[in-house]
């Protein structure tokens, strides 16, 4: 299968998948391995908890409903033991309240089944990178000759100031924070607008093209790329 181009460039991560559906698990394992990651699989909650507890992983992908021990209990169990490994919850329950309970149990992100594999890959990579934590403390993000100051809210391209609306600033901030990684439209809607519903029309595309018209220069190389079938990526160079 064709993995998004961005995945190949990111460093490999150790990922644990806890999922009881054999077929779904096999598909996930294959997709994540093709993206260059090291993947382990556990078929029930008890085994998953044991593996997560005794071995070191960068990201956990946990199905919410599992035999032996349900996904939320696995995550809250790990959190109680002080294990901060980022966890992505997969669930067929997709309402607002389900998401809230999932995140309260200690999950870091929530993805509703059925999902696009590109969505899952993008989220896993963002979670894995978050663990490194570097971006959270940086005050200035740089991609190519584009510069964003998180404290003064100043954006410059090749030294020239660009004026952005507050939402445009947050959109660019999120894209640059995850520079080099694919972010999906849903991720943008969730993280920049804090909405978890489907806006039907591709509102995000319109916002992106507006942002693009402000930050891209005719002379300079493009920085904000569209990844077909997935989303967007901020990257210097092609």
């Amino acid at each position, binding site marked *: 299968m064709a993995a998004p181009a961005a995945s190949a460039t990111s460093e490999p991560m150790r990922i644990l998948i806890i999922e009881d559906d054999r077929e779904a698990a096999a598909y996930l394992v294959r997709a994540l391995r093709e993206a260059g990651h090291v993947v382990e699989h556990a078929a029930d909650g008890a085994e998953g908890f044991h593996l997560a507890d005794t071995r070191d992983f960068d990201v956990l992908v946990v199905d919410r409903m599992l035999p032996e021990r349900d996904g939320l209990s696995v995550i809250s169990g790990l959190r109680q033991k002080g294990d901060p490994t980022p966890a992505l919850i997969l669930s067929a329950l997709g309402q607002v309240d389900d998401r809230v309970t999932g995140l309260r149990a200690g999950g870091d992100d929530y993805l509703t089944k059925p999902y696009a594999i590109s969505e899952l890959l993008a989220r896993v990579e963002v979670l894995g990178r978050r663990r490194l934590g570097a971006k959270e403390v940086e005050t200035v993000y740089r991609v190519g000759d584009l510069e964003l100051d998180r404290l003064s809210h100043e954006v410059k391209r090749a030294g020239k100031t660009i004026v952005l609306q507050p939402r445009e600033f947050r959109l660019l901030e999120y894209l640059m924070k995850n520079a080099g990684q694919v972010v999906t439209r849903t991720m943008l809607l969730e993280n920049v607008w804090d909405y978890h519903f*489907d806006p039907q029309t591709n509102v995000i595309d319109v916002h992106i093209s507006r942002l693009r018209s402000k930050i891209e220069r005719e002379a300079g190389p493009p920085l904000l790329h569209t990844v077909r079938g997935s989303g967007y990526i901020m990257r210097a160079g092609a």
Partner: protein
Amino acid sequence: MRMTAVRLSAIYLGLFAVFAAVLVFYVTATTADILHTQSRQAIADEIEDLASVYRSTGLVGLVRTIDLRSRQPGASLYLVTDATGRILAGNVQSLDAGVLDDAGFSEGAFGYERFADGSDGEGADAARGDRYHLAIAEVVALPNGMRVLVGRDQTEQERFRVIVRGALILALALMGVGALFAWFLVGRQALQRLNRMSASTARILGGDLDERLPVTGTEDEFDRLSANLNLLLGRIAQLQKGLRQVSDNIAHDLKTPLTRLRNRAETALADASEPQDARSALEGVIGEADQMIRTFDALLMISRVEAGSHPVEKAETDLAGIVADVAELYEPVAEAAGGTLSVRAEGPVIASVSRELIAQALANLVDNALKYGGTEERPPVVTVELAAEGDRCRLSVTDNGPGIPEDRRERVLERFYRLDESRNKPGSGLGLSLVKAIASIHGGTLRLDDAAPGLKVTIDLPLGTAVVPADG
């Protein structure tokens, strides 16, 4: 039920009997007391009288007077004895022992026998029991050791008491019989009505949802219960009909995208030799699948919101903030279509809502307005308004499109209903149903109006606890 009826009747009857007995006891006791006082007064008067006779005519005169009075018909009791207890005069043959021992008024009644004299008209052989009576009397001791007794027969009072007791027993017995009779009539009738209701219920449970509980028209408790249950049944039948219609619609409306999906998959298979065509066909398959997932999500959400099985978490939220956010999200879309999206909202308007759901509802309305609002010649001009009034607020989205004919405004709120004119545009036909469900879970309503030209969709929401005055 039978047990309850019997127990209630018994308690009722018991209470009534106790009250009746208390009343009768009170009446008899009071009457007896009055009669007793009267007798005492009469005796005291007579002793006074005899005392004056004794003072004026001495012992002989007293004995004669008493002898005379004893013989009169219906006379009081009289007795004069000497110091040894021998009877000198009077109409008393014998007394209970010890009555004469203490001077003064007798403590309670005592038994005595009257002489069987001619005035009684009874033979000497009359049974002793007939002549043995109860009486009360006062005994006066004379200085020479003689004793004078003046008394009154208590037979009348005794008879009165017997009559009252008999009446009480008779009344209680009648009451018991009456109660049994009434219970038999009323209770049995009530039970029969309940049985008829049970039978109707059984038929309804058996699947006949058109069956209704019997209503007699007396508007009593049973009728009211039956009428309410009938309303309930009507509502259930209506909901069931709606449910059946929705599942029919779902089956029908999901077949369409499934057919398209299948067609595209077949195309992909046929175009396997042309990788570019196959790829775009497969992308189409995924697109169709995604659209179906969205439809299912919307359906699930509507049914969960409607069923109220998952109460949403509400918080005090500024509606003007939501309006600004959603408008900001869609403004570039309006601009891209060459139209405008403007906001008229005075904030803050604080209400207890789910920010996510209200934003979703508003986003749906704005999305609809941008999609269907404009016409071929005119780009969409959409206005979002927020106005608070008292404890309610109105959130409305107005467009400049063709609007919706009045006779179809109710129908577009139904799941999957789409106007023929919009069938060729993307959409699931669930948007307004979802908005309606979100409005109703917040205790609000959804209304469609003619904006001449265009459509005005208004969500009327209660502001909830936020604006209730502190003393209210």
